[in-house]
């Protein structure tokens, strides 16, 4: 009744092609942005920032990146953890080597470095397909983690092998180090998220994005109609790695602060991000956000209910988390292989006709 496109007349191609074609959607989107930028920073506190909002934003970037590669271009990657490590370590090296460089630029350049590394590891994708590629990306995962563990230049020869983020300011607010305020960190991440999501959305509906999807749907057919697989796959790998690298840099610099590579960027992280996009929805921008929100919120919720309310031991809660995550993945694959994003699309279809569906 309220959610409908009737009466919403488009008078230009631009208006017809816009991301949120329905007025209500558009208003909801802008008000969400307004709340996120204006209201949340005022009410945010330490717990919400560190347990929910900041990890959600950072993982959303990583999920967006992997979704570009896996969801849009069809190349399954299990190397996201390794690429996040590249982002984190380049950010660390940049921050310590050029102390006067703005943290914003540091994060961006780390993304760029990761893009180059990602492109290198994407080269085999021209010959290897499907699972074989998924396993080949494991080479990136294990090799990169080993590299950052063994070569002490990467962690500036510190005795512990850890990297620690020095204190840096962004437009006058401290965003890294122990003295950063939750609101500043949150806003810093939010800026990246909004810009990168906007970029991803527009990339995926440009010629580049259509090439990716052609490769995903059937690579030989795409090649025959004139899509260059070399260009399409390598752009997908590099742009995806750019996103993942930024997520890694942010995770290290503003969120964790101190990182030990095997622990923070191990194979579990690669799987976590893969699960986000499966549960959220492959090939969907909204899905990346929903998946990230789900995977970040669920452990917090479970911990609150099982440990906080029922008083169980934390290890039992952790085991339950595994069972529930695994069960949910199976459930989603069986019931709705296109994830939460598809669920949302179905709801919208229903809403358009509500309350007179016939």
């Amino acid at each position, binding site marked *: 009744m309220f959610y409908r496109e009737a009466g919403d007349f488009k008078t230009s191609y631009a208006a017809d092609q816009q991301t949120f074609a329905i007025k209500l959607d558009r208003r909801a989107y802008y008000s969400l942005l307004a709340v996120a930028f204006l209201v949340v920073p005022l009410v945010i506190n330490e717990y919400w920032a560190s347990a929910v909002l900041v990890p959600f934003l950072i993982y959303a970037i990583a999920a967006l990146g992997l979704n570009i590669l896996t969801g849009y271009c069809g190349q399954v990657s299990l190397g996201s953890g390794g690429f996040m490590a590249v982002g984190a370590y380049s950010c660390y090296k940049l921050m310590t080597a050029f102390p006067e460089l703005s943290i914003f630029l540091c994060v961006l350049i780390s993304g760029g470095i990761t893009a180059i590394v990602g492109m290198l590891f994407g080269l085999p994708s021209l010959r290897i397909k499907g*699972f074989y590629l998924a396993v080949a990306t*494991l080479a990136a995962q294990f090799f990169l983690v080993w590299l950052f563990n063994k070569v002490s230049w990467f962690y500036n020869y510190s005795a512990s092998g850890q990297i620690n983020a020095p204190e840096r300011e962004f437009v006058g607010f401290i965003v890294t180090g122990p003295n950063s305020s939750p609101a500043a960190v949150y806003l810093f991440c939010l800026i990246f998220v909004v810009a990168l999501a906007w970029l991803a959305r527009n990339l995926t509906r440009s010629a580049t994005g259509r090439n990716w999807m052609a490769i995903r749907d059937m690579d030989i057919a795409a090649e025959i109609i004139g899509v260059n697989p070399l260009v399409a796959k390598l752009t997908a790998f590099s742009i995806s790695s750019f996103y993942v690298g930024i997520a890694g840099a942010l995770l290290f610099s503003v969120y964790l602060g101190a990182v030990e590579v095997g622990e923070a960027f191990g194979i579990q992280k690669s799987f976590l991000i893969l699960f986000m996009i499966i549960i959220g929805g492959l090939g969907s921008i909204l899905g990346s956000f929903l998946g990230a929100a789900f995977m970040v919120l669920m452990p917090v919720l479970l911990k609150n209910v099982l440990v906080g309310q029922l008083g169980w031991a934390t290890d*039992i809660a952790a*085991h339950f988390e595994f069972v529930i995550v695994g069960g949910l*993945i199976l459930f989603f*694959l069986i019931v709705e292989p296109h994830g939460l994003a598809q669920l949302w699309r179905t709801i919208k279809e229903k809403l358009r006709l509500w309350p007179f569906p016939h």
Partner: protein
Amino acid sequence: MSADFYYGIEVLLNGLMAGVMYSLVALGFVLIFKASGIFNYAQGVMALFAALTLVGFQNGQVPFAHLINAIFGTEVHHFGWTLPAFVAILLALGVMLIFAILVEKLVLKHLVNQEPIILFMATIGLAYFMEGFGDLMWGSEIKKLDVGIPQGGNVWVEQSTASLGGDGFYGFYLDSLDIYATVVAAILVTSLVLFSQYTKTGRALRAVADDHQAALSVGISLRTIWVIVWSIAGFVALVAGIMWGSKSGVQFSLSLIALKALPVLMLGGFTSIPGAIVGGLIIGVGEKLFEFLIGAPFLGGATENWFAYMLALLFLVFRPQGLFGEKIIERV
């Protein structure tokens, strides 16, 4: 001949043994992939789960003891008996059978005709589920598995080869457990090959692997075949779990050997049982020799973590179907 040369041979032999251990896990993958086209990521966790169940039965642990204690506030841990290894193995096998039936009924049945990558992800979900479930059921602490396989250096091999080298050479050091594993793997592979070549069920398995539709149309039940295949994979997982569990204790890291089995498969080809063995041997020898010759002296060690993947990656660039895999033919 110098002692270094003999030491090199010892590294080679140990690499071969380690390769056999990888092959044990890789075998389970190949079985399921051949029969259903599913790449079963959960194979490693199945090995872990089987080993956990075996230890649990042997020690008479109460399943879900932690959970029961947490809910009801009781203090139960053990039934107070210990079972002989043989009985416990049979019981664990029974659990793996039930597991195979449940997987077919609850998961695979609903995912018929989905794309392979969806099925692959489903097995990742299954792996997570089982990992949590196994820990909930039997607890997550490291357990010792002992089914009576001798461990430690094999004295006989050491003494009989001691005369080969010079003064500084005391014979080859080979772990008895690894020798047992090699024998077990050989028996397992032979019996699997015999089973799939000379029995009626084996023929049906091969038919399903060849063409689902054609197999269905001549009256082979896909669902029965899947249950059988997953049961066999469960059995192989149990064997792998026993071997790895006796070697390094039953713990979470056991499930990670699945990841080690992946490059083995890529080298050997997903569809070949001999390929799994040869691939395992190449990886086992390759990573030990690389560590010995290049990794430890020049790269700071621990190259075993990634060498297998890099080798497989480079190999695949030149031969995408693996050593023994069927040629990939692509059609539009």
